[in-house]
């Protein structure tokens, strides 16, 4: 059920991206919005899809992926909605104009801080523990015995 829901999000996100490209042929003003929201949606929902194990997602990741979608897509939307302020003497934030700083924070700085941490902190419980690996290898060995075929790497 959870996986189907996430797959639905992936498809909807990709359709939004597709609509964005279709809109670009008509020079539609909404086309960049579709590309921004659709791409962020596709990325986060695919990550969520990859993190589903036995129908569940780790509690921390249930927060991380939606929050990062809102943050990344939100940064793009704010930059698209704000009036340009990059002229001579314009204010700088962390060395760049405000709109650019928002985008850089949204798709580079914050993700590079959050995702490696979320991955490492949930790896043992939600990705691959020693027990998971042992169970997998035992099950594969059992399957190989039943089929009479050697496991990969065995003579």
């Amino acid at each position, binding site marked *: 059920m959870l*996986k189907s829901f996430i*797959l639905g999000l*992936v*498809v909807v996100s990709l359709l939004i*991206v597709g609509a*964005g*490209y279709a809109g*670009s*042929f008509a*020079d539609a003003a909404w*086309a*960049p919005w579709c*590309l*921004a929201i*659709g*791409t962020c949606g*596709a*990325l986060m929902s*695919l*990550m969520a*899809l*990859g*993190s589903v*194990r036995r129908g569940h997602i780790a509690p921390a990741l249930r927060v991380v992926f939606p929050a990062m979608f809102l943050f990344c897509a939100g940064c*793009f939307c704010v*930059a698209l909605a704000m009036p*340009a302020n*990059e*002229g*001579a*003497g314009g204010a700088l934030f962390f*060395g*760049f*104009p405000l*709109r*650019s700083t928002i*985008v850089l924070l949204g*798709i*580079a*700085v914050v*993700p*590079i801080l959050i*995702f*490696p*941490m979320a*991955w*490492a902190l949930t*790896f*043992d419980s939600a*990705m*691959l523990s*020693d027990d*998971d*690996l042992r*169970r*997998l290898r035992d099950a594969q060995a059992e*399957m190989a015995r039943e089929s009479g075929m050697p*496991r*990969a*790497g065995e003579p």
Partner: protein
Amino acid sequence: MIPLLQASLPRMTQPLIVTIAVVYFVIVAVIATWATRKTKTERDFFVAGAGVGLWTLAIAKMAASLSGFSFVGGPGLVYTIGLAGVFIILPGALSNALGAWVLAKKLRLLGEARGLLTVPAAIGARYRSPSAQGLAAVGILIAVIGYMATNLLALGIVIDAIFGTGLAPGIWIGTAIILAYSVAGGILAGIYTDVFQGSVMALSSLLVLSFALKVGGGLHHISDTIMAADSKFLGPWGSAGPITALSYFFVFSMGSLGQPNVIHKFYMLKDPRQLKWYLLLMSVALLCGQLIYIAIGVAMKALVVSGATAPLAKADQATPTFLLHFAPVIVAGLVFSGVAAAIMATVNSFMNAGAAALTLDLPTAFGTKLDNELRWGRITTVVLAIVAAGVAQVSGTLVAFLGIFGWGMFASTIAPALAIGLNWDGATRAGAISSICTGLAMTLVGGTLGYFKIITLPKGVDVAALSLISSLLVFFIVSWLTRKDAPAELDADIKLVMET
């Protein structure tokens, strides 16, 4: 999309630069010779014996990810279109995470379960389909030739600029050097030279960032100078507009799931539990390697608009002009070694991916198996390199054209079938084959029609982007239409890996 190098580089035949370049090539040769002695089987040749540690994997993946474009073409692109150009590298923070959650563990465990050596083999195993494996291999072969040709041309230009050899000899000398270790040691030699090359790239990149900030008077001063002259350059979409920037963001983030030279390296990790720290190490490595990309482009723009240097005749002269006029010679030598390193690491990975497609995947698709895969791997590596070097000597526009759809071809033919297929047991063989064919056809036909100006796409929209979104949607639609076939097409051991 973007040609790797658009123009020849200024002459850099200064004794110190030549010395550093020679030392660099000697170190590469020593490492390659050491690693070559360890290459005994086809498993060593194609997946480094699946015995690589995490640090090696992260640095080698970074080296393979960054081609010469990151050091020369990329800064030139930023110099030309401003911040829109950085949307090619910025998705790295997200695409690394995407690759980790979607592919890292599953590819590594699948490789172990089935003894897989290639990326198309994973597609073949997932759908129990030699046809899907063969089609993916065809996509890889076409893209590899184009990618290798553009990179060998770039390497020829760099060697010519440093040693004054002339372009054609530069191409063949560069090809011979990479071939020497790629043929003898395969990816095992490649991956250990990648570690050295990746370290050179990261060091070069960090040094250039510090010099760029120093020369420009700090980031605030650089930004003030540029904004006074060009209000759009430092805007979030640069001077190219939001569609261009966001299309780069889509293609280079989602497309990362289909780059065989990078994702193939997951097979090589010795202990899958080490993946715990993979994302952190990879993110840091890539961040270090990519700093040069934005630093030089932005700094050169500031130097030009402030009158400190003349406007560049060609955008690709941004890096050599900055290094030769605003950085110490020793840094210039190191960075140009870094450029050579980036190109060589990328070409080695492509040579290996192409050789694997010819030696392992295509015979499988035709229901046969070659007798001595190690020997054939070496032979096909030579053949591919000669073809690519020959193509590199053909006119620059054709080489650029071939390089254009490399990324898009990989992305649209591999990403849907592999990345989504390994995470969705409802994906079907028909869906995979349809999406691969869609990617192949749209990239080839669309690229050719665009090259001959028969079709014109809206500003910022590229054939690679349209191919990728089309192949993704076709994958879902056809899989859904044929969903009753899904359970029968998924072997129990593959399902076990997908559920672990």
